[in-house]
């Protein structure tokens, strides 16, 4: 595990992508072959079932370190990570063990069926035989939650460089279904498991935000414009009599959307569609807040099926009759897609995402202004002769979003951040005015520069009114403009509404707290979107 701990340290201490890739390449060159599939699984979010629950781990750590519960909580707030907090508060190890990463992982998996007493003995013994950094890794192995800023793209690039294979094939291979205990590193990067698996999706093609004016893109005739939909990006895979629906988070969401199950009978084997899962009623796309009622539910009620029926606006055809279509031109893929969608017996549920016809760029700019009326977020521009890329690639696909909504608010609470921002007050709660009261409307923690964070931090230190655990009430003085993508009714929030994707647009140093927006302003906005 030492070599892996070293890798983690290298990945964490550099913020340059090239250094990280170099560290990964070195690791995959030097590490034990049996460790590697586990590392790939970890970095791509494939987690084994937790062998021991967090409450027990925490309790044992308290016992071993002899500190009171509240002090552990304070420490945790300062560190921002449970595994790391535990690694740091435990007394130094009394012996040292040097075992392979996969041995630890396999032993942890075996714990599942043991008694709590046996689990405790194993965990305490491990803690007592590992140095701080390795303890941290060990704790992360238990939680299975390894986030250290390695994107799957970065991992794939490293694997490609180390193994001399094509990166899109590796991406393909590691996104599919495999078990680290049952596959060798060589087989995994070679993708020998992929053909036998019906479910594997293709890596999504992603767009960059268009920053310049679209005129810079050249002739309008070279481009296809579509609405940019605000739903769940998904991929529908039909192979060998099986249907799979993948979300962009590489999650299988097939069961959540029964409205799409007719495709099992109507879609030809060897077909893969890219598109957006949306709530569509009477031919109209509904707001994201409506779709939201349908997400992550184990059971779906009749009412939900009625108020938030699901549809799929398909963008692209990735596989046809079992053949990979991604290297055909968009124009070619699109016309085939329209034929396939047109051939479905069930109509109005899975349809090609409409193409926006436009004369010239200024015409398109005007059309874009009406995006919100359609519950769309703006315009997508795709080059007609482009292939379907793996991941984000500059040049062929652009998203041209409309500007977000904004509201002026005042900061009323601050809390220390976690992760990179631990130790500074970086998580703020904002309020709008409601009569003579301030009412909480959003929590946000991004959008400020490090310098601004330090400035706000020192404001919080000087102007804290009350403490509630880690939260500080501060004088309502600092005004921030909050940007957000949508607004929805909410029974869980005091304001009666909730903002979607709120973030700090800018710090309005020019405004005073009595110049902020009111709750009525937001209520009016909500009415206008429904």
């Amino acid at each position, binding site marked *: 595990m030492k070599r892996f701990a070293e890798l983690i340290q290298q990945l964490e201490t550099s913020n340059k992508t090239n250094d990280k890739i170099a560290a990964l390449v070195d690791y995959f060159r030097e590490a034990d072959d049996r460790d590697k599939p586990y590392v790939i699984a970890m970095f791509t979010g494939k987690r084994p079932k937790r062998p021991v629950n967090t409450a027990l781990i925490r309790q044992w750590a308290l016992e071993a*370190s002899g500190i009171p519960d509240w002090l552990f909580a*304070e*420490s945790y707030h*300062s*560190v*921002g*990570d449970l595994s790391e907090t535990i690694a740091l508060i435990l007394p130094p190890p009394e012996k040292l063990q040097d075992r392979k990463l996969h041995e630890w992982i396999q032993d942890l998996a075996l714990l599942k069926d043991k008694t709590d007493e046996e689990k405790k003995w194993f965990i305490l013994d491990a803690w007592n035989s590992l140095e701080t950094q390795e303890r941290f890794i060990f704790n992360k192995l238990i939680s299975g939650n390894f986030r250290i800023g390695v994107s799957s793209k970065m991992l794939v690039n490293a694997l490609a460089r180390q193994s001399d294979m094509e990166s899109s094939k590796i991406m393909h291979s590691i996104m599919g279904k495999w078990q680290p205990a049952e596959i060798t590193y060589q087989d995994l990067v070679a993708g020998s498991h992929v053909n036998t698996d019906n479910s594997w999706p293709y890596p999504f093609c992603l767009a960059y935000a268009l920053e310049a004016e679209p005129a810079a893109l050249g002739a309008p005739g070279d481009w296809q414009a579509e609405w940019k939909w605000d739903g769940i990006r998904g991929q529908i895979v039909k192979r060998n009599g099986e249907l799979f629906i993948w979300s962009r988070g590489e999650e299988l969401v097939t069961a959540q959307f029964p409205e799409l199950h007719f495709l099992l009978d109507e879609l030809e084997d060897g077909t893969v569609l890219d598109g957006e899962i949306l709530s569509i009623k009477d031919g109209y796309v509904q707001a994201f807040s409506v779709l939201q009622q349908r997400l992550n539910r184990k059971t779906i009620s009749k009412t939900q099926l009625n108020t938030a029926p699901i549809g799929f606006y398909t963008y692209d055809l990735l596989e046809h009759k079992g053949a990979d279509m991604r290297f055909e031109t968009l124009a070619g893929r699109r016309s085939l897609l329209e034929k396939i969608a047109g051939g479905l017996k069930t109509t109005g549920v899975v349809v090609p995402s409409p193409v926006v016809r436009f004369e010239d760029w200024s015409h398109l700019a005007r059309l874009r202004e009406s995006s919100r009326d359609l519950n769309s977020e703006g315009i997508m521009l795709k080059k007609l002769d482009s292939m379907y890329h793996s991941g984000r690639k500059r040049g062929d696909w652009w998203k041209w979003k409309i500007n977000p909504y904004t509201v002026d608010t005042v900061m009323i609470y601050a809390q220390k951040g976690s992760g990179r921002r631990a130790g500074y007050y970086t998580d703020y709660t904002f309020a709008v005015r409601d009569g003579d009261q301030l009412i909480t409307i959003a929590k946000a923690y991004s959008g400020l520069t490090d310098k601004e964070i330090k400035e706000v931090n020192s404001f919080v230190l000087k102007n804290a009114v009350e403490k509630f655990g880690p939260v500080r009430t501060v004088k309502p003085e600092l005004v921030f403009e909050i940007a957000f993508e949508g607004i929805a009714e909410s029974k869980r929030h005091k304001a009666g509404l909730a903002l979607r994707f709120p973030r700090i647009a800018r710090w309005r140093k020019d405004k005073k707290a009595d110049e902020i927006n009111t709750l009525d302003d937001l209520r009016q906005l909500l009415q206008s979107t429904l």
Partner: protein
Amino acid sequence: MALITFTNKGIYCGKGGFYIDPWLPVNLAVTTHGHSDHVKWGNKAYLCHELTKPILDQRLGEDLKVETLPYGREITINNVKVSFFPAGHVIGSAQVRLEYKGEICVISGDYKIEDDGISSPFEPVRCHTFVSESTFGLPIYKWQPQAAVLDKIRDWVSDNQDKHKTSVLIAYSLGKAQRLIKGLTGYSDLYVHQSISNLNERLIAAGVDLPETIRIGPDLKKEELQRGIVIVPPALAEGRWIKNLIQPATGVCSGWMQVRAGRRWRSADAGFALSDHADWPGLLSAIEATGAEKVYVTHGYTATFSKYLNESGVPAEEVKTQYGNEETEEKEVLS
């Protein structure tokens, strides 16, 4: 009346009529050490340890009225006995011991327990009232021995040299810089920023045994720096100067580097948990050794640390001071 009170100017000894580490101008400032959050310009007179004087001369100017005292010698100010004991924090750092009619109070300023090989090591002093910092007053802060940290730094430097990178260590100009110079001498040539070498010259003149370093100046070639170790203060950490070196790799030396979030926040290439402050076990052992009946916690994790002390049977109270901001203070000094 208590021997000390906490006022808006600083820690005040009413019986003696003087302040300890005041942040607003007073007649007499008894000074624990030379970091600028503990000593300000503008006091009519200063009393400090003899090795703190050259630091004040360099940082605040030479026209100040500064009296000095070695460790262990006692003087009397308005019937209050005043003496200094080593705090182990930086060169010249002292705990201030006050005694009046048998009541003893110790103001420790900043301190650490481990002997760093360059500051006089911390000496516990028995007292009734102890004033403590708590910069690292959480149980997550436990330092490794200095020798182990220096080994890590050497390994890092050697790895950088293999990769033709320039090793740049970020360290406070007073304290960490001298510690690194002493610990790394002989391993590689040491190139130091002028704010460090100016201070070192004063310290050497005052009799401190400091190894030789090379002052960074315009006539030095980048290739020379690439082979050695460059030591600069935090104010330069994010500046253009470092970026212009040949493949610079930065390593921050600070207790905050103990935690991953601290390392990422500083966006350095490496972090070394090397601190001039006591860690959690250090704070607890120091307080226990004083036998104090009452502890005042001045800066750091004051609320948490005093709560813990109270629960462990040591009456403690947090007090608001303006200490604990070495880094921003140091930036002001440089700019």
